[in-house]
């Protein structure tokens, strides 16, 4: 069997890859292992998994983390929806139609990619103070919603590749710009918009710095922020409880990955290259 021989020739490669994979997954292993330990199990065997797996850690961690899920849903939901809506409108207009100022507007949008949000942390914080938005969802939603440049760049590239005849015939039929956006642009861009959407959800789910500055109210805190507060706050948790909270914080992204693996990877790759 030639295939078997080929597969056998790959075995050294698999072994080397395994050598890379083991340390890569070691932190995840540690997280899962410790999350099932009560105080005494941890004292006796802090690293390797022990039986029985202690689910009460998850109950305690969940009672602390549960409120954050609604906050994340609202903040990320509104933020991503706004980016996709306004970003696609802008990208469609700039990519498909000629009008005075079009080029200038495109560069106006693009230049923002050179302004990472952390280098404007201080003035953005001052702006939120002045707008009296500290400790509101808006303090996080608005800067997120404004981070459209990456989405616009990707969508602009996509819309530019569409055939011109398509739009010419639509205009002969009397369709306005907005009609063309609704009936042609949006449906065609749906796959690429979901990839962008998944990337943005991942990006915002990971954000810790900005929420930690503007959301001191425990009721409003996001998952990543609350996780750090749980670990490093006043009542330092048992290691098992802390790790359980870490696992809980990852579950939504795990689910997102499982239901949209290809989209997820496509979005992240685009994000890495253009972001």
């Amino acid at each position, binding site marked *: 069997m030639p295939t078997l021989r*080929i597969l056998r020739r790959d075995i050294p490669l698999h072994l080397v890859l395994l050598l890379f994979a083991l340390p890569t997954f070691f932190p995840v292993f540690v997280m899962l292992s410790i999350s099932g330990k009560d105080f005494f199990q941890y004292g006796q065997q802090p690293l390797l998994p022990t039986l029985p797996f202690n689910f009460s850690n998850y109950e305690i961690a969940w009672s602390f983390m549960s409120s954050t899920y609604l906050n994340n849903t609202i903040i990320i939901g509104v933020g991503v929806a706004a980016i996709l809506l*306004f970003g696609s409108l802008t990208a469609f207009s700039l990519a498909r139609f000629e009008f005075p100022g079009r080029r200038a507007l495109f560069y106006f949008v693009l230049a923002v990619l050179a302004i990472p949000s952390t280098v404007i942390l201080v003035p953005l914080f*001052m702006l939120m103070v002045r707008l009296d938005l500290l400790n509101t969802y808006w303090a996080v939603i608005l800067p997120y919603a404004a981070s459209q440049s990456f989405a616009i760049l990707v969508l602009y590239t996509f819309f530019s590749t569409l055939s011109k005849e398509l739009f010419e015939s639509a205009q002969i039929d009397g369709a306005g710009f907005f009609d063309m956006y609704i009936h042609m642009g949006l449906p065609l861009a749906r796959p690429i918009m979901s990839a962008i959407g998944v990337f943005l959800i991942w990006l915002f789910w990971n954000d810790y710095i900005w929420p930690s500055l503007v959301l001191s109210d425990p009721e409003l805190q996001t998952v990543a922020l609350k996780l750090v507060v749980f670990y490093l706050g006043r009542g330092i948790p048992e290691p098992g409880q802390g790790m359980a909270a870490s696992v809980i914080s990852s579950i939504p992204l795990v689910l997102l990955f499982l239901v949209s693996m290809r989209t997820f990877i496509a979005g992240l790759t685009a994000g890495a290259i253009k972001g």
Partner: protein
Amino acid sequence: MAKYDTIAGETAPALSRKSINWERLRHISPLYLMVLPTIVMLLIFFYYPAINGFLTSFQYVDVRGSQWVGLENYQRLFSDTRLLQSFRNLAFLAVFNVCVVVTMPLIVAVLIFRLKSMTAQYWWRIVFVIPIVVPSVAIILVWRWMYSADGGLNILLSAVGLGSLTRSWLGDRDVVMWALVFTNFPWVAGINFLIYYAGLQDIQQEVLDAAVVDGASSFRRFRSIELPLLRPQMRLLVLLTLVFWLRSFELPLIMTNGGPGFASMVPGLRMYYAINRDFDLGYGSAIGTILFLLVLVVTVMQIRLTRSRDDAI
């Protein structure tokens, strides 16, 4: 760039024409409405803060108001040895991670690419992407535990008889920076390796086949064909890595708060503390402005490199 006419095929009126074409303006006005929300949001949440941050860096700010102090914030900045130390730390983080990004993900990408079975390639790619579903904060907290006095690293060291090496990794000013850069070892998980992998896929199969026919070894094939052809990906990842470390300080913030003392402080973190601990907003803005300039230099380099590459093609 291709020319995008208005769909109907009308030619755009020359800008020099005196009389404004009201008919046409009325016709295209919806387009301005469609881009308006984006423009307004970018103005308020990017352009205004960027300009205001620059102006604030020349001011002293407190609750009562602000006052112009000229270059005082910058003078303080450049005479603050601790802050200069934090720039050295930043350079260390950036250089180390650049070295990492041109080796580890590349090795894994080539190893996966060498597999004969496409199914195996697919699953190994999934394996190394999956860890990104764990939020970075959670990963950092696990590593924080690993480095703690009774944490994973010391347990492992004792288990293999190297108990004499155990220490509080984050509490020792001589090793804390090394502890920080070894977080995420072996630095493969994520999408960097996918960028190399995509580059490998773009290499013409005929070139590789010819090399195999000529009897080139796997290593020779890598050194003479793949490595030179992957230079664009490498350049991209180097610049992305530089920008990433210039702008992020989550790792030292959660791991060490910049400690012990100032041993793992970075400028971004100092800026963060200027907001929520020291309320020294003018000083924080000065740091932000310098980081902004550094990011700008890197970005301009990236654009120039990309452009010269496009010209070459």
